[in-house]
C-alpha cells in the first residue's frame, strides 16, 4: 500500500511538473499572453512599482510555503495531520503587497 501511495504521489508530482513546464513553454512561445503583467496599459512601457513589488513578494511566499510543506513532517493538530501553517509575517507581507497593488490599480483608474 505504501508503495502504491508513493507511485501515485510521484506520478502526480511529475504531472504537475509537466503541466507547469507546458505552460511555461507556451508562455515563452507567446501562445499564452503574458505581456503587460507589469504595466496597467496594454502596451505600457513603464514598469509600475506596485506590480513589481507583488511579482517579487508572492513567488517568495509560494516557494517558501511549498518548500516547507514538502520537506518538513506533517504537524499533528487535534490528533489529525495538517498542512504546515504559514508564518504570520509572510501573511502580512502578502496582504501588504496586495493592498499596495490594488491601491495603485485604483489610483491609475484600472
Amino acid at each position, binding site marked *: 500500500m505504501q508503495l502504491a*501511495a508513493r507511485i501515485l504521489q510521484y506520478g502526480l508530482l511529475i504531472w504537475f511538473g509537466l503541466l507547469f513546464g507546458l505552460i511555461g513553454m507556451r508562455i515563452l512561445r507567446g501562445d499564452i*499572453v503574458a505581456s503587460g503583467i*507589469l504595466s496597467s496599459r*496594454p502596451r505600457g512601457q513603464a514598469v509600475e512599482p506596485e506590480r513589481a513589488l507583488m511579482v517579487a513578494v508572492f*513567488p517568495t511566499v509560494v516557494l517558501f510555503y*511549498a518548500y516547507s510543506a514538502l520537506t518538513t513532517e*506533517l504537524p499533528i493538530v487535534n490528533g489529525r495531520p495538517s498542512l*504546515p501553517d504559514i508564518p504570520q509575517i509572510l501573511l502580512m507581507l502578502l496582504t501588504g503587497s496586495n493592498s499596495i497593488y490594488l491601491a495603485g490599480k485604483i489610483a491609475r483608474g484600472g
Partner: protein
Amino acid sequence: MSSIFNAQNIAFLGFIAIAIILLGFAGIVLLKIWRGDIGLDGLLAEPVPEDKPDASMKASLSRFQFLIFTFVIAGLFLLLSIEAGTFVDIPTNVLALMGISGGSYLVAKGVGGGSAGTDKSDKKKPKSTA
C-alpha cells in the same frame, strides 16, 4: 480463496483502481493541453471587452497570482493527503492566504470592469438629432 479477498487486499485493489483512474484522467488532460484541444491562450489574460473588439489582450497579475496559489495549495493538499493516508486539515492562515489572493483578484477585476463600464455608459448616450 477467502484469504485473497480480505479487507486489506480489497482496499489495496480499490486504491490501485482509483490511482489508475486519477493518473489516467490527468494524463488525458495533459495530452489535450499539449495538442491544443484545451486552449490556454487566455489563461493569464482578461477577456477583451465586447465594446472594444480591437483591444489587445493583457495579462492580469492578480489572475496569475490566484492561479499559482490555487495550484500550489491544492497540489500540496493532494500530495500530503496521499502521504498521510487521510485528508489533512488546512490551517486558518492558509485559508486566509487563499482568501487574500481570491479577494485581490475579485477587486482587481471589479476595478478593471468599472473603468470599462464608464466607456459603455458613454456609448449609451442618445445621439443628437440636430
